[in-house]
């Protein structure tokens, strides 16, 4: 479970980074609109671009640096915070000469600047002084115009609802996030843990299927051979096969390493047919054998192993001594049909009856992204179609 804390941290950090970016963007948009409005009313209001530009940089750009660059030094944070306050004072002072152009006047520009000031500085400081930061910042946006505009010029003070809304909104967001934090962290942990369990479960299930196929193809097959072999000295090929299976299972990588088929058992379709013939089953092959060469080595090996299991089933269960293998397909998929005219079967009620088909054929093909379909009627033979996806041309 060592990976969990890292992933939780990533997820939480993702949330924090995204909120920072959004607040910075909000403030930058506000600043841009402030400039645009200032530009549109300059002729009327006589505002100073230079003063506004300097004030804007101090007011917005410096806290943006704090937000986006994760400055940790308290003294640098304090200096940048003071710069931002000076920026707001500059904004207010730079517009005080305005003498009444009516709508969209400098007090609206001050409003935008104030709202941006509260939002961005509130986002930077709320962790340090929770809940207190935003009211203090809002108080500054009220106090600074009072000191620099209202009292010196003896103009009426006007309640700035827009900045108040920005401050209250930020406060609500902070309160909700703080109230949800502990619980949402626990929920993050729980969801991460559940997803981890599911991923592990899927991986384990895949490995169990593979292990079942290997156990079936090695130990179970050998036990079945021994159970039907007459007492006496072991035939050399039986002994060799037993040694091969034991040797495979004694390897450290028996589960994920090359299958025993890759080592000695399978040399290709011709070898497979020869082995079946040696066991008493005559197999005829038709169709486009060349399609198999377009598949990668491991895919061919797994596919042929599934075919061999089907032919083994023909030999064991069908009562026939002949079978037909047909290779067909397209660029998208390759199919191998194994057909016999034997006794056929109905879907087994005891799943143990057809374990070879399940463990060694179906799961094997499913792991390759393919499928196995079976058509069988008692007395009318069996057809099994094994399909694997075609591989893109290199």
């Amino acid at each position, binding site marked *: 479970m060592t990976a969990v804390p890292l992933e939780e941290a990533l997820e939480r950090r993702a949330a924090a980074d995204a909120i920072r970016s959004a607040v910075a963007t909000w403030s930058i948009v506000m600043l841009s609109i402030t400039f*645009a409005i200032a530009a549109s009313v300059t002729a009327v209001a006589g505002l100073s671009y230079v003063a506004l530009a300097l004030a804007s940089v101090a007011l917005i750009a410096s806290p943006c640096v704090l937000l986006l660059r994760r400055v940790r030094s308290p003294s640098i944070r304090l200096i940048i915070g003071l710069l931002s306050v000076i920026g707001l004072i500059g904004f207010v002072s730079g517009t005080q000469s305005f003498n009444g152009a009516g709508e969209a006047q400098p007090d609206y520009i001050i409003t935008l600047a104030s709202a941006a000031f509260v939002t961005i500085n509130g986002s930077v400081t709320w962790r340090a002084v929770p809940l207190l930061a935003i009211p203090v910042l809002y108080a500054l946006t009220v106090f600074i115009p009072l000191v620099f505009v209202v009292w010196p010029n003896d103009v009426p003070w006007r309640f700035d609802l827009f900045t108040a809304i920005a401050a209250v909104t930020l406060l609500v967001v902070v309160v909700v996030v703080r109230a949800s934090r502990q619980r949402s962290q626990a929920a993050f942990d729980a969801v991460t843990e559940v*997803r981890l369990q599911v991923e592990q479960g899927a991986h384990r299930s895949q490995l169990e299927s593979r292990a079942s196929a290997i156990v079936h193809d090695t130990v179970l097959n050998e036990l079945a051979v021994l159970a039907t072999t007459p007492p006496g000295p072991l035939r050399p090929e039986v002994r060799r096969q037993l040694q091969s299976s034991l040797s495979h299972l004694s390897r450290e990588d028996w589960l994920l390493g090359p299958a025993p088929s890759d080592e000695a058992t399978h040399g290709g379709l011709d070898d497979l047919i020869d082995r079946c013939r040696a066991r008493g089953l005559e197999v005829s092959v038709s169709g486009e054998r060349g399609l198999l060469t377009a598949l990668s080595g491991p895919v061919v090996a797994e596919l042929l192993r599934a075919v061999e299991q089907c032919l083994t089933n023909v030999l064991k269960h069908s009562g026939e001594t002949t079978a037909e293998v047909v290779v067909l397909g397209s660029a998208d998929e390759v199919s191998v049909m194994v057909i016999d005219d034997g006794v056929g079967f109905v879907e087994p009620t005891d799943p143990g009856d057809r374990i070879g088909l399940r463990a060694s054929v179906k799961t094997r093909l499913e792991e390759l992204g393919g499928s196995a379909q079976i058509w069988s009627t008692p007395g009318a033979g069996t057809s099994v179609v094994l399909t694997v996806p075609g591989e893109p041309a290199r």
Partner: protein
Amino acid sequence: MSIPERTVQVLSPVSGVVAHRIAIGGGVLGVAAAVVLTFQGIDQIHSFPLAMLGLVAITASAVYFGIAASPFRAPFTRLDHAVVASLGLGAVALNAGSQLGTNTIIRDDWGPPALALVLLGVGIFRPTIELIVCSAISCTVIASIAVLESSSFTSRLPLVTYALVAITPVLAMGVSTAVLSSAFFRAYERYAAIGADGPELRAAVEATVRERRLEALGDEVLPFLTSVVESGVLTERDSLRARRLASELRAVTVAQLDESWIDELGIEVHDPSRSAERMSGEQRSAIRGLVQTAVDPDVAARASMRLTDHDRAIVGTLVLERRDGERLDRGELAPYIAMVRTFFPTVRTEVRGGTLRVIFAYDA
């Protein structure tokens, strides 16, 4: 099956739960701002019915968002977004209509700031592009309304100034929520790419499976086969033993093949077609999370799931019930309810007291 949209809510259901609370807070603030500003600027209103309709529209927008953004109704769709934004824009238009010809100052109009507040939490629920398009449409409508109203303003400024003043809240909120959505999404994609299941964990799972299988074979089967190979001779007793071992091993292998992820949950399951295996990873996560959260191991609880295989779909019914009479914790269940609603194409959930019933369907 339809593919879930690429939104933060889909990737991180917990974010959706927090954003739902922010959506409710934003809605309350938006409606409050609208009411306060309506009374503050009452001298500019010439049509009170339109003003009242405007308040009703912004309230409807906020209420709809609060309901539709609930994890119990997840996912929040494009249609939901369109309804919220349309009601909000309708409110802006009604607010402007109630003052048409008598509006003297644009910046005290409540329409744009109230709409921006209502849409405060939308960034988590919708894709970035849609948020940008919605903001662009909203800004165009709001700017046009401002220009239409400009003849009654007391000031004489370039029209663009009025448009800028009017669109400020919605533009700032729209762009920042789009940035929020994009930044969240990119971060979560990086998170997903890293994957929760690292190489160390994969190796641990591999070792467990390997050891488990060898343990099953090691007691008798492998020593028996080794002894036969070493002696080079097969006795009748060996043949009988091989038959018995083959039978036992076949039974064990079948049992192992029959194991399902759903068995690990320790609930009563009726799944004759092994349909649980056909659920996707996200669907499994949602069901597993729900079960694990609802069934507190310290509390006696009953849980059951029934999966029925139909022609093209599998229908499931999951019932979780606390026996101690306590209510299920809806807050804890919320992320998983959102996941179930997002990742299953058809879902109905009911939480009543201590019982949760989830009926869902997915592709066969």
